[in-house]
């Protein structure tokens, strides 16, 4: 499962900036039937956490109403260079992660 973390190119120390996250996930609602008429089990991203310098900056738990390949965005401030780490877990227990080095001017 691929993921993208999109941040502005020029981040200034302690100035707020927007972070966008895009995760490849089918986000199976749990309401769909397959061709044989059996219910497809719900499988969505249960928990999602973004940490920066080991501090949690963003947390989300998603539900069935969210489309596939969810896009999330939030604002944060960064005092210095550091690794922005994204990790998530879905209903099947599959974990995923992505990270991006923030360069702060």
């Amino acid at each position: 499962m691929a993921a993208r973390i999109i941040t502005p190119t020029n981040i200034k120390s302690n100035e707020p900036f927007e972070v966008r996250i895009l995760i490849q996930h089918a986000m199976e609602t749990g309401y769909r039937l397959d061709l044989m008429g059996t219910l497809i089990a719900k499988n969505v991203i249960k928990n999602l956490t973004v940490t920066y310098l080991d501090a949690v900056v963003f947390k989300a738990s998603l539900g069935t109403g969210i489309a596939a390949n969810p896009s999330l965005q939030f604002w944060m401030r960064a005092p210095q260079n550091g690794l922005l780490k994204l990790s998530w877990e879905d209903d099947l227990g599959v974990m995923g992660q992505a990270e991006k080095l923030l360069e702060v001017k």
Partner: protein
Amino acid sequence: MIRLLFIFVSIVCFNASSFANDFERVVPPQALRSGLTFISEDLRSLARSDDLNPAFLWVIQGEALWKKTESAEHPSCSSCHGESNQSMRGVSTRYPQLDKQSGQLINLEGRINECRTRHQKLPELALESDEMLGITAYVGMASRGLPMNAHIDASNIEHFRRGRELYYTRMGQINLACTHCHEQNWGRKLQGETISQGHINAYPAYRLEWQRMGSLHRRLRACLSGVRAYMFPLGSSELLDLELFLAWRSTDPKIIVESPGVRR
């Protein structure tokens, strides 16, 4: 009897043979428009932004595959072709093409699989797999902004004619040909959707209906399913012939490559 004959004539009057030549267009060149102009402004902004376009989830996988070296016997794409945005510039505008070695008509997916088996000594990628969609999107992206550029000559005219024939043949329980929607009724509504002219410049594209990336052949099968016709298999000769005709139909300075595009 005369009435029967009249019905028969009215059924066959709109097929490939009613054209003066193979290159007659129903939609005049000045009216040609990319599918991008038929979708909502929200979707267009998604397609315009490389940050927000969900197709880039596949592009990054394609980029990784392009650069991935399995071992010395299995070189990566980049070890021969270098940077794709230079070496692959314009490549996707010219497909489908005849393969010189086998004489078969192949599209970009076919060429990639051929390169994998012939030169990289790797197994073929499954059509519609994330890897295949990723690498075709990544290669297609190198041609972004260039017009479609299909060449029809004596070598591929038979494929072109077969594709054209399919395009103007009524199919399925609904009994429609491609032309009935995409040439005679484009711009009008089909339920909530605006019918496009059916150009292929955005594929492989992220389609909201699928909630994922998909190839042109998947899109063509979706239309076949819509008219309840037999769905030709992915990569079949019928779909390849049709793809060649569609590529020619989309060859116009106004129809530029958008892959990886976004569509309803």
